[in-house]
């Protein structure tokens, strides 16, 4: 580029300046790469130090008793049974509510909704909602679900709250996934006479499924670590019994009573132990953190596996 702008220079000079320009561009490249590597190294080493520290301090504390005992005033007796069961049940409700609604909303916005100021307005709002601090959702849920609808401080309300929280994530990722499908696929389907629903069901959804699943699991991974909105709606801190079992001995054998039970979750248990004076509780908190990270990783792992499987399936 420097060649054309400095056209009045002699041929030798031009060559020289071209050489300089290339040289300086290469140098800038190198500096940028080095800088990037440096920043990456700092970020990753911070992350690894944190996780490593947690794992080193927490892992030896995790054993069968820790996973199957209730919280206790005595660190050696304390466990996280009610916390991890609570976390799992809340996640179940969250997934059950947020994933279908989020996918449906995303598909509608992308494929059915008429493009205009209204859909733009909704799009902006959905994107903004993804950035709203989680405690706001907690306050909303406290006012609406807990008091407004009188649902109380239950697993159902917690699941609904976290579902609201991750709904924007699911919607946005569904839209992204749908948008990334080549136009040619759709056009081809319409070309052979498929109607909109057939295109949707047989082409768009299968092709977008890996992206949608990734979005859903990323949302769930975020939800599982949330504390603030659950504390706001009144999650318990000490609970030494499990919710009612989902399977019962009498007809109809399935019970949803657990939806209306009180609960606690892993991050709340962890938060509670971290602020205790006794150092043994800090180790228990680290162990809880390890369990939480393991849960998050396995959720992400499932997402990657599903994506891999679906991609392979889709290609065949």
């Amino acid at each position, binding site marked *: 580029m420097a060649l054309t702008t400095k056209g009045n220079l002699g041929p030798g000079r031009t060559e020289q300046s071209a050489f300089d320009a290339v040289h300086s561009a290469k140098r800038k490249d190198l500096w940028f790469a080095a800088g990037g590597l440096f920043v990456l190294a700092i970020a990753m080493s911070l992350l690894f130090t944190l996780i490593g520290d947690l794992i080193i301090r927490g892992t030896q504390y995790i054993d069968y008793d820790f996973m199957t005992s209730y919280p206790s005033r*005595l660190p050696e007796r304390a466990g996280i049974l009610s916390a991890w069961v609570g976390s799992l049940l809340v996640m179940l409700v969250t997934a*059950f509510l947020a994933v279908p609604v989020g996918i449906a909303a995303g598909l509608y916005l992308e494929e059915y909704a008429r493009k205009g100021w209204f859909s733009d307005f909704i799009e902006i709002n959905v994107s903004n909602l993804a950035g709203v601090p989680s405690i706001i959702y907690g306050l909303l849920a406290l006012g609406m679900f807990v008091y407004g609808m009188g649902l109380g401080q239950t697993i159902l309300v917690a699941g609904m709250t976290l579902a609201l929280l991750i709904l924007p994530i699911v919607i946005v990722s569904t839209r992204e996934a749908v948008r990334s499908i080549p136009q040619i696929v759709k056009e081809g389907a319409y070309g052979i006479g498929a109607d909109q629903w057939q295109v949707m069901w047989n082409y768009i959804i299968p092709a977008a499924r890996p992206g949608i699943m990734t979005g859903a699991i990323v949302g769930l991974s975020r939800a599982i670590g949330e504390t603030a909105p659950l504390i706001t709606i009144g999650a318990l*801190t000490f*609970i*030494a019994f499990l919710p009612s079992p989902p399977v019962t001995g009498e007809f109809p054998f*399935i019970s949803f009573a657990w*939806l209306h039970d009180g609960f606690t979750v892993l991050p709340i248990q962890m938060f509670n132990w971290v602020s205790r*004076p006794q150092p043994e509780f800090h180790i228990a908190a680290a162990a809880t953190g390890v369990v939480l990270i393991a849960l998050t990783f396995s959720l992400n792992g499932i997402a990657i596996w599903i994506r891999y499987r679906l991609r392979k399936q889709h290609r065949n």
Partner: protein
Amino acid sequence: MRNLTLTTAAAAIAATLPGLAVAQDAAIQIDGSSTVFPISEAMAEEYQIATGNRVVVGVSGTGGGFQKFCRGETDFSGASRPIKNSEAAKCAENGIEFVELPIAMDALAVVVSPENDWVSCMTVEELKTIYEPEAQGKITNWNQVRDSFPDRELALFGAGTDSGTYDYFTYAVVGEEGASRGDFTATEDDNITVQGVSTNPNAIGFLGLAYVEENRSRLKPLEISYKGGECVPPTTDTAGDGSYQPLTRPLFIYAKKSSIENNQKVEDFAKFMFDPEIAPELVASTGYLPLPEKAFALAEKKIEARTTGSHFDGGSKVGVNISDLLATK
């Protein structure tokens, strides 16, 4: 087929939604202060083991706990300060009567780093000089507090404004609840104060005594001289016999009168918390100071008599007498 299962499940959930009247096996509900939480947790745990009755504990802070309590949602509310008049009025509005019960004593300690060799005792006035609102931006150096202190920068730590610890400290030291300078490292987690003070030789901070006991090697607690008296170190003994003033305070459990009356389990639990055979050991294991011996019988009497109302008229008091507090009027 999958659609069918989904629809069935959705229908089942929809069907259970209105069925909220199906009450859960009612557990005894406790909420309130995070300071009192370790005690409530210990009581709940042991009571549940002993009787099989369910007790759950939440942590909403003293103020948040009273909000729920006065709406009638909880049976007990833990508090690290007495109930405020505005809160008591809210309770009265909703027809909630309460029995005020001190559950344990807590002492606040003023701590410096073990490397600090220039101070071992401070007067309450000196603490006031450091923490009062007028000190903001002005008192920044140790030698401004006492002439003999070295020319070193002051690094201030303390409890955050949402905590009962902060309320009581400002009340006892500055003289007015909630009045303090704003430019200190305020945290709701006393472990951060431990961390900050132990690593900075110029630091001073205040926190619950339990945190000092657990971090003996990392903190140096200061002796306190109150109203020209002698220097008294913060220990479980001095706090227990009332000689460590003015930073010793009672912690409370407020019990809902109607729950005690109508639910035998709630009354049993209330008495369990004041069982002289069990309570002192439980309270001590959480790092707090058990009540003096005579208090247990008084508390039981107060529960039986259902004596309602607050002894405090809305604010903290320094040097409260536990027997007065438990008087059955």
